[in-house]
């Protein structure tokens, strides 16, 4: 859990989410660049999870530990789940689902940071 990594996840997921919504606005399903962007978001979340695992193993413990783990697991699964459901609906609505999953990751990243650093 580092501020820069949290910041990168929030910025990337909001940008990719907005980009998916632009595709939806054009009545289009996602293209390869959108999927690459979603993969980048999912990858950043995985890096964050590894960082959290290492620091938890090192003895650091966030507030509301169980909730923290729940948010972490949800953050890892949300974009893959969103993209999977999106591929069942290869229309503008699939783009909305993928975009919504990215925006949810931004919220989860913020909540994880709040739990990790109670002084914020």
């Amino acid at each position, binding site marked *: 859990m580092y501020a820069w990594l949290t910041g990168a996840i929030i910025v990337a997921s909001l940008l990719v989410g907005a980009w998916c919504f632009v595709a939806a606005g054009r009545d289009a399903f996602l293209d390869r660049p959108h999927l690459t962007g979603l993969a980048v978001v999912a990858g950043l979340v995985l890096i964050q999870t590894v960082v959290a695992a290492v620091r938890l193993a090192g003895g650091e413990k966030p507030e*509301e530990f*169980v*909730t923290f783990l*729940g948010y972490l697991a*949800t953050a890892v699964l*949300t974009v893959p*789940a*969103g993209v999977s*459901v999106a591929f*069942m*609906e290869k*229309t503008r*609505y*699939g783009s*909305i*689902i993928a975009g*919504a*999953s990215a925006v*949810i990751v931004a*919220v989860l990243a913020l909540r994880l940071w709040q739990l990790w650093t109670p002084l914020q």
Partner: protein
Amino acid sequence: MSGPPGGRALTTGPGRVLVFLYGLFALAAGARAAVQISTEFDEAPLAYVLSAVAAVIYLIATVGFIRGGPGGRLLAIVCCTVELVGVLAVGTASLVVPEAFPHDSVWSGFGRGYGFVPLVLPVLGLLWLRATPAGKG
């Protein structure tokens, strides 16, 4: 909105977005309520029980949307209506009698803690149920 014929109209197009969001909310609200009830129930029993009730209703609504047909539609209509009444009632109560809600529930402050999605979701659900022809599911 031209969904495929048969009983699938409710879960295609915008319906699929609804099912995804409902499923996610059922999971998130349910998991959060389970953690809160098992670890700190005494601190805010009312709020946590309400969150659990909300989670169950989200789950039933999700099932209703996925099943479709007259039964599924009825289930979804009832759940969306209960959600809308619930979020409005609890939202108002949490503002008028804040001491009854020392900790946030899903519906406190009209779902403020969840980006007002709990307020928007049942409205979208009911609009979608109205937009899809009943005969098609």
